[in-house]
């Protein structure tokens, strides 16, 4: 018996999280913020993800030289 596909979970705006993401810290990104507090929390989390992604990219451009 094949497993039923998971229902699609549209991400509100953060393009750096896919519908299969299961990190509980990202749950806020799966609905449209209804209050300013939710907007702040959603934006903060997305910014954290992007910042970490940019850190990775920077390391791939200029890897830290090890002695």
């Amino acid at each position, binding site marked *: 018996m094949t497993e039923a596909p998971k229902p699609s979970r549209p991400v*509100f*705006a*953060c*393009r*750096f999280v896919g519908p299969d993401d299961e990190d509980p810290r990202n749950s806020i990104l799966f609905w*449209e*913020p209804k209050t*300013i507090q939710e*907007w*702040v929390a*959603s*934006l*903060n989390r*997305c*910014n954290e993800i*992007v*910042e970490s*992604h*940019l850190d990775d*990219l*920077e390391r*791939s*451009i*200029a890897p830290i030289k090890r002695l």
Partner: protein
Amino acid sequence: MAALEWSDEFSVGIDLIDKQHKLLIRAINLLAMAVEHNSSRDIMKEIFRTLRDYTDTHFAYEELLFDRFGYPDSVKHKLQHKNLLGQVIDLEQRWLAGDAEIGSEVLTFLVEWLRNHILGSDKAYSAFLITALKNG
């Protein structure tokens, strides 16, 4: 050398939007850094994708605020967003097709593109949204 440095003139007075603009500046600077280091096409491609997707993300969060608070120039501003995102997508597509090289001309375009977005249009909503956010 950074293609664009953050300065107070860019601040729209809303910390989280300023933070997003700083990350967009960082993405453009990473592209400049990748050019300087002769990075691989895969790395350049990923930086371009990041710039395009984060621009889209940034605009969506701004537009949610416009809708929530009834920003009077919302339609005009959303149209500017559409055009700005279209310019980045067009540049990315031309580069992927081999019709554009990433050099000083492209970096200057992206710097001006972001400066126009922040100074030319985002400064316009600053006072309206700061007041709206204070009043909840």
